[in-house]
């Protein structure tokens, strides 16, 4: 069977205990992005940004299933993807604020990052074919490595997604499509923008599909690890669809959902669940991450502007 639902440890059940490292990463992303929204309100950032508040557990769960040889293609909502890979809040904040030590010298900003094998773009859907190309190379020259692409449900409106799936399956490449299905694209609910299902679309190409309902990091890892391993070993493309929730606005202050919808979305926050079930561990790590982000922000804010010349942390790779 090409498609299946992975349910154990769903939203209804209490989460299992995380090791400190995982919970810290979750909290790092949460506080990093809350801080970004505060910086916007304080007029310290301009343009816009998209936070993954509510969805952090997806990249955190996948982080330990990916390794340095893997490519990650991220999108407009990519801070969690980046931080899960590099744990580099200072470099990312410097990038967004245009300060010394910025990952891409400050030319990329929030949604256009290029560091070693991590690339993000704000143009929806365009990463997929690029990832297929990279995956084809990996298959030929670095067997066992894969190319992972993060996309939202709305992005399944773009034609490039289907061109890529077709090629990925035809050429049997190690492509992992991670769908953060948060039921909304900007202001448009999935019901108004998607006919059929992602599962059926993947099936149409003969591409394996898994849908994950759980928000429990441990449970997710256990459930998806074998399928991810098959991508590596058998060069079988896989669509991994996470039923998730966008708790924050699309970017800033532009949430069109009703109070009632927002209440139900907020009630599903992993943050509350872990806080409730593991209060001591949570309080200790939450404070630590909150303070770390405050410290980093002060430090980065005081730095000189980023410049095109000079060293850039991420660009050593061949």
């Amino acid at each position, binding site marked *: 069977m090409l498609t299946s639902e992975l349910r154990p440890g769903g939203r209804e059940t209490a989460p299992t205990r995380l090791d400190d490292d995982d919970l810290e990463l979750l909290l790092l992303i949460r506080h990093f992005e809350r801080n970004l929204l505060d910086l916007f309100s304080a007029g310290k950032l*301009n*343009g*816009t940004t998209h936070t993954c508040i509510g969805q952090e557990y997806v990249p955190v769960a996948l982080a330990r299933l990916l390794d340095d040889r893997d490519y990650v293609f991220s999108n407009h909502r990519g801070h969690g993807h980046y931080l899960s890979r590099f744990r580099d809040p200072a470099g990312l904040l410097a990038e967004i604020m*245009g300060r010394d030590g910025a990952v891409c010298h*400050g*030319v*990329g*900003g*929030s*949604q*256009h990052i290029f560091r070693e094998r991590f690339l993000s773009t*704000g*143009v*929806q*859907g*365009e990463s997929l074919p690029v990832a297929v190309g990279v995956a084809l190379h990996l298959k030929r020259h670095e067997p066992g490595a894969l190319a992972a692409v993060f996309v939202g449900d*709305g*992005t*399944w*409106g*773009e*034609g*490039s997604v289907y061109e890529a799936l077709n090629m990925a399956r035809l050429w049997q490449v190690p492509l992992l499509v991670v769908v953060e299905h948060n039921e909304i*694209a*900007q*202001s*448009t609910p999935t019901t*108004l*923008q*998607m006919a059929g299902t992602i599962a059926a679309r993947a099936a149409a190409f003969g591409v394996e599909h898994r849908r994950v309902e759980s928000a429990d990091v441990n449970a997710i890892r256990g459930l998806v690890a074998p399928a991810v391993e098959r991508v590596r070993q058998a060069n079988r493309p896989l669509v991994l669809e996470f039923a998730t929730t966008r708790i924050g606005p699309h970017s800033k202050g*532009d949430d*069109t959902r009703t109070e009632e919808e927002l209440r139900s979305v907020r009630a599903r926050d992993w943050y509350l669940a872990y806080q409730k079930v593991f209060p001591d561990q949570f309080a200790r790590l939450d404070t630590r991450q909150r303070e770390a982000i405050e410290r980093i922000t002060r430090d980065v804010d005081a730095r000189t*502007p980023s410049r095109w010349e000079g060293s850039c942390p991420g660009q050593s790779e061949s």
Partner: protein
Amino acid sequence: MAAPTMHRPTTATSSTQTITLAKGLNMGLRAAMERDPRVIVMGEDVGRLGGVFRITDGLQKDFGEQRVLDTPLAESGIIGTAIGLAIRGYRPVCEIQFDGFVFPGFDQLVSQLAKLHYRSQGKVKVPVVVRIPFGGGIGAVEHHSESPESYFAHTAGLKVVACSNPVDAYWMIQQAIATDDPVIFFEPKRRYWEKAELDPTARPEPLHTSRVLRRGSAATVACYGPMVRTCLDAAAAGAEDGIDLEVIDLRTLSPLDLGPVFESVRHTGRLVMVSEAPSESSIAAEVAARVQQECFYSLEAPVLRVTGFDTPYPPSKLEEEFLPDLDRVLHAVDRALAW
């Protein structure tokens, strides 16, 4: 040659109201929809959200979901279906969220929209309007601040216009919708919130005309879209130093209406062409080429271009270095005068 038309400053009468450029577009769309039931609006988040910049605010509520369609995230699909609707009699107005997101739909624009009228020997009309907020100045990132107008002006079969102020926005969007040909309609996003007095009972200039906004004799400054405000400010600053600039808003980029520019250059002998787009193979390059061809004997100095640079659009912290500003315009004027 047609005499250049003067921009009549509207004095406030009972029929005028103060509007922003965004409001002008919204009112223009509304008027077009009221007048003609074949006009429909489609795009990402244009319905319940009213679009990223709220240009379509309230239209779905008032005209319903049959006429204001929230589409999937699919630019090629949006423009393609608009073409299909148009050849069956609709007049679709498509919204592209930001300049940098038109490219997934580029193939439909260039290969279908631009060609059908020609291919059918004029039998098929394709009255599609594609609205694109363009240009920088709002502190945004890559793909959100670009000026891609020359790609479209380069393609035969597409009309391309750019509004610069609230009054033109109101009239030009209606005229674009009433046009039987495809029109790529550029909106200067950083001027969306600028205000002016609109008299909806006035008679608008034809769509494909450029317009002299300020008379002067020292040099001609031609511009369009977001740069019009910049150039008018430069002219005001120049006037304080005794430099009297003539400012022309091109308004229509394809076809260009350069009659007023030629006439102006024959008086002033100098042209500074200003736009945000990079200069290479740009509208500015086309204007420069035609002016030197038509006004060769009148020119006292080469045509100078003040434009964005031939680089990807920079991060927001640097955009002030990239975007032509008052100083760069006046500096070019000084160079032209010193020639």
